[in-house]
């Protein structure tokens, strides 16, 4: 290598996995890009990936980084560090901040803070309506020009069907995606946990599945009417999976995501009234978990998205009905997905990486394929390593993880952001 060449890093002997398939190879990175994939490569730094998967970095469609306004729970820096530790090279930052990301200043702030932290790409989402109040549309065109791809009022659904129709019509041609948090608010007033056997027994206000399914059905029909693509956030019920499956069979431009906790936990987790298990949408039943897993397996559900929702400890020490919903997800998503999904690793990685990259509109930079010329946004993980969450070692500022004491299989070893070795041997370097 000549003295003027940039320093190179070789990820050696890993199982290189992308949408084109899997092969054992070395990957050489220089100046932020993949320059060579092959056998016996040499570099200034060699990272041994024997037994590990080398994949395009993960892309999270759904993270609450809380900044601006909720910095006691998370900052863009702490959240993006947590993301990098989880193998993510890009995260979509939800707009339910204070102030709401419904104008350019907040969107720019989020992006700049993400660049300063330099742990992963932080992709600001913006709200569909001003202040997420469901009354006036946010300036889609101006925000799209500022680089926003995903619009959502997440935390609440757009209740007004006329406004939602107008939003879809107005979004047409802007190359943006409207993402819905499906919840008919009137049906979930005071709701705390899934409405079913468990809430009946515990005497806790029920959160009916139909609140999600009604809005999902409405929006699928609005997509049919307008032709504008939509993405459905954190689906949680068996019937929701069926609705999306039928919509896709009809050729409608819809995509959907599921959160890791909805793939493994049920409403029974709330039997001890611990608010750490309170989440929106709520943990549902075994039947719903099975249907959601099947939905990921058959591609009905495109992406696994964390819905990473940090909350400071005191807020989760309130009574169950007063504690805020949400749980951490960025640092555990891979481990949960590999532990509970009975499907090929390649399909799990697809749902964590290239499929969400396409939905987020960053398929040119994230999600592979792993070939010369592409940005070196990569994750190296051991698919078989067993580990447990240690709350004090989380990069997140918050501790509201539901996975303490649970054996997880599959752990991130290294994350590279444009060639920068941001996570090494499981530890964040920034």
């Amino acid at each position, binding site marked *: 290598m000549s003295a003027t060449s940039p320093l190179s890093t070789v990820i050696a002997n890993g199982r290189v996995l992308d949408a084109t398939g899997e092969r054992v190879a070395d990957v050489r990175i220089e100046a932020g890009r993949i320059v060579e994939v092959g056998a016996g490569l040499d570099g200034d730094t060699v990272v041994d990936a024997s037994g590990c998967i080398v994949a395009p970095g993960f892309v999270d469609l759904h993270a609450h980084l809380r900044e601006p306004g909720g910095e006691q729970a998370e900052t863009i820096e702490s959240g993006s560090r947590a993301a990098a530790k989880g193998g993510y090279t890009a995260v979509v930052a939800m707009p339910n901040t204070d102030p709401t990301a419904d104008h350019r200043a907040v969107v720019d702030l989020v992006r700049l803070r993400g660049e300063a932290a330099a742990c992963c790409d932080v992709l600001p989402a913006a709200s569909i309506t001003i202040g997420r109040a469901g009354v006036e549309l946010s300036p889609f065109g101006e925000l799209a020009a500022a680089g926003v791809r995903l619009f959502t009022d997440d935390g609440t659904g757009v209740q007004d069907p006329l406004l939602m129709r107008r939003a879809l019509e107005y979004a047409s041609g802007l190359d943006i995606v409207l993402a819905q948090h499906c919840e008919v608010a009137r049906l979930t007033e005071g709701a705390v946990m899934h409405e079913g056997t468990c809430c*009946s027994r515990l*005497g806790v206000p029920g959160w009916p599945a139909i609140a999600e399914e009604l809005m999902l059905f409405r929006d699928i029909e609005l997509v049919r009417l307008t032709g504008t693509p939509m993405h459905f956030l954190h689906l949680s019920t068996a019937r929701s999976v069926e609705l999306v499956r039928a919509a896709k069979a009809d050729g409608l431009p819809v995509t959907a995501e599921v959160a890791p906790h909805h793939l493994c936990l049920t409403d029974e987790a709330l039997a001890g009234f611990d608010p750490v298990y309170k989440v929106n949408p709520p943990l549902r039943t075994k039947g719903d978990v099975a249907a959601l897993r099947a939905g990921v397996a058959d591609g009905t559900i495109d992406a696994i998205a964390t819905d990473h929702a940090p909350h400071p400890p005191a807020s989760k020490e309130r009574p169950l009905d007063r504690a805020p919903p949400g749980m951490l997800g960025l640092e555990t998503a891979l481990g949960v997905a590999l532990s509970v999904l009975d499907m090929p690793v390649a399909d799990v990685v697809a749902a964590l990486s290239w499929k969400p990259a396409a939905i987020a509109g960053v398929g040119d930079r994230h999600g592979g394929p792993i070939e010369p010329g592409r940005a070196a946004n990569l994750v190296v993980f051991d698919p078989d390593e067993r580990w447990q969450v240690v709350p004090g070692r989380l990069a997140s500022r918050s501790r509201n993880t539901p996975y303490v004491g649970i054996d997880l299989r599959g752990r991130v070893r290294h994350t590279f952001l444009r060639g920068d070795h941001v996570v090494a041997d499981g530890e964040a370097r920034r």
Partner: protein
Amino acid sequence: MKHLLSVDDLTLDDVGRLMELSDHMAEVNQRANPKVPALRGTTVCNLFFESSTRTRLSFETATRRLSGDVMTFAVSESSVNKGESLRDTIETVAAMGVDAFVVRHGSSGVPQQVCRWTSASVVNAGDGWHSHPTQALLDAYTVRTELGRNTGFDGLHLVVVGDIKHSRVARSVSRLFAKLGARVTFVAPTTLLPVDPEFDHTADLDGLIGDVDVLYLLRMQHERMSEALVPNLGEYTTRFGLTPERARRLREGALVMHPGPMNHGVEITVDPAELPGAVIGHQVSNGVAVRMAVLFDLLGSGAVAR
């Protein structure tokens, strides 16, 4: 037992022991000086986040008759909302030296949460829609004494009428009575039932009024009308109230119970004093004996009945 959070925590042996202890405490309460030194030196903190004069007085009386010290902490919900966390409140009071917390809260599950933050015993004095185990125990004790049912409730038909869905009393009484062998039927419109009721249910009170051993009427909250759960109180009374017509059809010896406070003219339109089976006053007096039994069982030396 360390805590009493729910009737689910009780084995049949626990219930039997508490019933026998309650007999003993009832005898104490009959004495000219109804006081024993069983809990001398122990402190019971009544932590009431929801106002409840009756239950609070019942626990205070029970503690004093056992010579325990009472600390009563009526926390306004607003002060907790101002930012003091539940955990801060518990840890602060626990640091003053408390052997048991008696907790009443409008939110289901708070007593379970309290257990995680203190080494003291915790007695649930009613939480949200979830549980009210001492109410269920005093009701079981009342039926046991009134009907001479010392060995269980096999064959007994308990009919609970009213707002089952929002009732911690209904959840606790039905489960404890079923544990003791009773057959349980809920009577309510579907709007006032949990989505998945644990027991048989019907909206036809007239269809089973002649087949009841214990008719348990629940308090009908006025705010349920604004939530469109029932059209109006008059219709509620027509369909689910204990009217003179229904009272006449009650089997001889059937008991009529109510956890109080009663809405006269709503869930009941007959004067309870004219009902031979109404034992509502006995429920209240038994409440003190049963709560003495519970506190003694949790905190006492255990020498009396074990």
